[in-house]
């Protein structure tokens, strides 16, 4: 069942495709922004539009506006989303968007380096997070990494991931359990190992580590049994 969930990146990964090949094949990274601070929003949008291979056709103030946009326009590949927003909160909005447009990758933009909020957003559907004061080139780099199948995961997030899946086990949600390799990687992250050290420890490539991490994010996005059932009824599973 989980297999059905794996995005195409993973299929490619399993097929042994190389990152460089993927990079060449990458199409224009279409990005959307939901950010209530108009200056930051405009700066990021302008900067992205200036980058080669990037476009940012939509930068709105709220989830509601983004949803309207998505109704009538093709979905972007990546959404940068603030958490504190007027109207629907970023975390709520992520859930809504992920349910409707599961193909959109979401990156949380946050002022706080607040692991709790970050983790909440990861569970809600984000595949990564960025501090707002991250420099614009770094933001572009992060989007690119994500598009290429990478995913950041800090030790504290990793620790929360372990706690989350342990709790899930206790609640008898085996469908969300981590595989042993995923478990290894998360443990490595908790120990503070870099992706490289983890890849060395387990004799795998950094890309594989990233792919595993992305998969762990996906698993996080199924929040409850009820949600699984809902997806199943909609024919998504």
């Amino acid at each position: 069942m989980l297999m059905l969930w794996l995005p195409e990146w993973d299929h490619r990964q399993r097929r042994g495709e190389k990152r460089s090949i993927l990079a060449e094949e990458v199409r224009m990274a279409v990005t959307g922004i939901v950010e209530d601070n108009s200056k930051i929003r405009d700066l990021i949008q302008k900067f992205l539009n200036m980058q080669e291979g990037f476009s940012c056709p939509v930068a709105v103030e709220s989830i509601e506006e983004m949803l309207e946009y998505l109704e009538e326009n093709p979905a972007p590949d990546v959404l940068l989303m603030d958490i504190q927003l007027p109207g629907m909160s970023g975390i709520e909005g992520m859930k809504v968007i992920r349910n409707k447009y599961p193909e959109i990758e979401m990156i949380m933009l946050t002022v706080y380096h607040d692991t709790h909020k970050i983790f909440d957003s990861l569970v809600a559907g984000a595949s990564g997070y960025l501090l707002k004061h991250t420099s614009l080139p770094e933001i572009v780099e992060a989007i690119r990494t994500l598009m290429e199948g990478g995913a950041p995961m800090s030790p504290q997030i990793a620790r929360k991931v372990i706690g989350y899946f342990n709790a899930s086990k206790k609640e008898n949600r085996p469908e969300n359990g981590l595989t042993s390799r995923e478990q290894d990687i998360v443990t490595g992250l908790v120990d503070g190992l870099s992706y490289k050290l983890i890849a060395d420890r387990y004799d795998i490539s950094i890309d594989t580590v990233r792919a595993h991490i992305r998969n762990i994010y996906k698993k996080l996005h199924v929040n409850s049994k009820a949600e699984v059932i809902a997806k199943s009824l909609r024919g998504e599973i």
Partner: protein
Amino acid sequence: MRMISILCPFLIFLACSLQSVTADAQTLPFRTYTIEHGLSESVVHDLIQDRDGYVWIATGYGLNRFDGHQVDRWYSRDGLNDDQIYALFEDVQGRIWIGTESGVNIYEDGAVRSVTGLEDMERYSVISILQDREGEWWFGTDGAGVWLFESGGQLTQFSTVHGLGGNRVREIRQDGEGVLWFATDGGLTGLDTGNFNTWTRSDGLSGDQLYDLDIDERNSIWIATGSGISLMEDGEIQPVAVGPIYEELPTYSIRLDGLNRVWAGTEQGVLQITEGRVESYTTADGLPGQIVYSVMVDREGHPWFGTFGGGVALWMGDWLQNWSVDEGLTSNLVTSITGDSQGRIWIGSYGGGVLSKDAESMESWDRGDGLDDNKIHALWFDRQERLWAGTDAGLNRIEGGVVRSVESQFADLDSVRALYEQDSGDFWVGTYRNGVYRYRTDGQRDHFHDENLLPHNSVVAITGDSDGAVWFATYGGAVRYRDGEFMTITVEDGLPSNGVISLSADHPDGVWIGTYSGPALYRDGEVQTFSSEHIYASAVTHMLFHDSTGVIWMGTNQGLIRFDPDLYRTATNSRERERAWRQITREQGLPSNEFNTGALYRDREGAFWIGSVEGVSRFHPDRVPLSESRPLVHLQSVTVAGEEVDWSRRGSFSHDRNLIQFSFSGISFDAPSGILYEYRMAGVDSDWTVTYDRTVRYPSLSPGEYRFEVRAYNSSGVVSLNPASWSFEIERPLWMQWWVLMIAGVAVMGIILIIYNYYRIRRMVDIERMRVQIASDLHDDVGASLTELALQTDFLRAGNPEPEVGETLGQIGDHSRRIVSALDDIVWYIDARNDRAGDLTDRMQDHANSLLTVRGTDIHYNFSGLDMDRRLPVQIKENLYLIYKEAVNNIAKHSDATAVHVTLKVDGRNFYLEVADNGKKQQERRRSGQGLRNMNMRANRMGANTDIEVENGFRVVVRGRF
């Protein structure tokens, strides 16, 4: 004062007339209790006194119990088999056995009940009861013989068939040798060792119909028969000589009083037989009924008589002799008494003129004999044995039985109230309206009145003291005349009243002055008064005299008052002072409680004659009965908040029922109204309180343990042996119970703690919230602006500016980001969700990763043994992080290290942080840079020690305790 002087005679007269109108026949030394006093009926069949002192009265309708104050009554509706009660008996357990028209009842513990096993007797009238020394019961019936009720419950009837003299058995007694004696209607039957023997007229009995018997300590049997009294001594029966009348009449009852006197109730009054001398008392002597069915002698020695139709009478002794118009007086309002050398008594009365009497004869004089008026106020024998009589209309003299006219110098006197002749021969005449006159031996007359030397013109008594001074009782105070000088003693000197009406000047203590408000003593310029709880201490003292022992006697409007000044003087408390006073009233046989001013005379035998509104009485002060028997005292009722409670056992009442009233009664039939009570409430009163009331109220007792005690003193001052008492408790209200108080205390403390904690926590929360708010606001507003700034520089740099400009922009961006990062740290460590050890290590790793990993430095963390869920104090977390951050920044800035080792341990409350690298570029490090100083400062803030080495690589160790 003048008002009183005018009104007083009128009031006295009015009181006298009322008294004479309402006075009943109780003029002789019998005290009577009738249905007016509460008896249920006037026919009295039997009388007994129980161990508690109560007198039980078997009447023709109902059973009565009397304590001297009130009568309790029981009828068939209260459980008696019949309302007709014949016989009473108190057994060794204190139960009262009651013989009725229909069998036997028992009174026990406040209730009357039937006796199991005696149902068969309900067909018979039980007229006599005895418990013999073996504890077995004998019941004499009216016509059905005698019944033996054995302790086993067996009931046996004995009658004439068995040898009983007759089947009507009126009395059963057991003598000292154990022989049972039955007074039957067929003679005297004795039961000795199983044999009935009967004595009849033929054996010397004065009659065969027997009514009663009593046995003295020599086993002599006094027998009341249908015709006189017989005495059985040593088996020989003799009639007792009681005079021809009584020898023919039935004697219904006979009792020995333990004082060698035999009292017998007969068809015509009572006989008293003392060593062969017989005295009779009939209705003429004050007995309330002629037929006397029963006689009983109480514990104080008073004989009681139960009469047919007249209730109960109590003989008060022969200490007092009384004469009234019934005995030949011309008037009962005796105002003056004197005596001549032959022992004749001369009596002046209000309206009855002058009367003289001796044991044999009486002679009287009135207006018809030449007296100015029949209203006599004063009599005086002068040294020539001439009787002077002061009347309401002048002065008269009786010589040789003839009323003579007085000398002209006396002729203008009108209402004469007092007469006195000095040893010098000077003769004083006190008047009601004109002061006092002195008739000197030289024939001159002096007149003293309120316009010269007297305080008042009413002079009602005159006497002389041993110093030769003359004393006058006036309505304006007491006046002394000595050596030609008058001295007046009034209320200003301490007299209870200016209305002085009696004097006694020959007492060793000084001059006693009787006023309208009690007595006073004058000596050497000092006036002393005497107090009592009883009203009689301030009674109208019509006459005042003393006996040979110095005891003061006062005839008042409250009876005769005996006052012992020595006892009063030596008393140390109010109760002992009360003992100095004693009241003798109609209860003790006085014909009246109202005496008349000046009607006092001491005869040659030392006896006093006193005049009252009911004639004249004579008594010897030393023969006034003083009961030495201890009174008994009982609680009568206890009411708590108005409800009567059972005081036979300990009581317990709620705190709001704390109004308690005690009624009690002392039993002394000597003088029931003269009983003095002392009570105290242990728990409230430290001392005894004295009262004559029989009720005490405690209006609002606070919760606690109490014991009420009361004891009684009889009129002679003898105290009861055991006080009556009752213990009870007023419960603490719920809110005063110890456990409630404790719970409440704990609750209050708890609430205080909760409130305290609530406010403390709220304050802390408020502070925390405020900090978070400040930090967040800083972060949001400042952080957002700085973020904008940083992004702006990024944007500008992306536009490829001049290298210098680009560098400047980069610096601006970096600064902005550093500030945002610092704000971020603040927000992190004040957030309570981030206070676990794991949060700290996460952030430590995060920081190192972002700074060092980027450079390719390997970081090795040693968090082994660290409990990631262990909570750390905010201050510790903050400072440890900042030290760590400083160290990592230091390494990142200045070190060429390729590996960094980070160790964090928390052991109990001890913590340990170590950051060490393997850098070689020591020389480039600033040994005491700002960073190192910051680390020391932060360590100090949390009371930790820092150890910084820069020799072999950079190494910071922080040890501390929280």
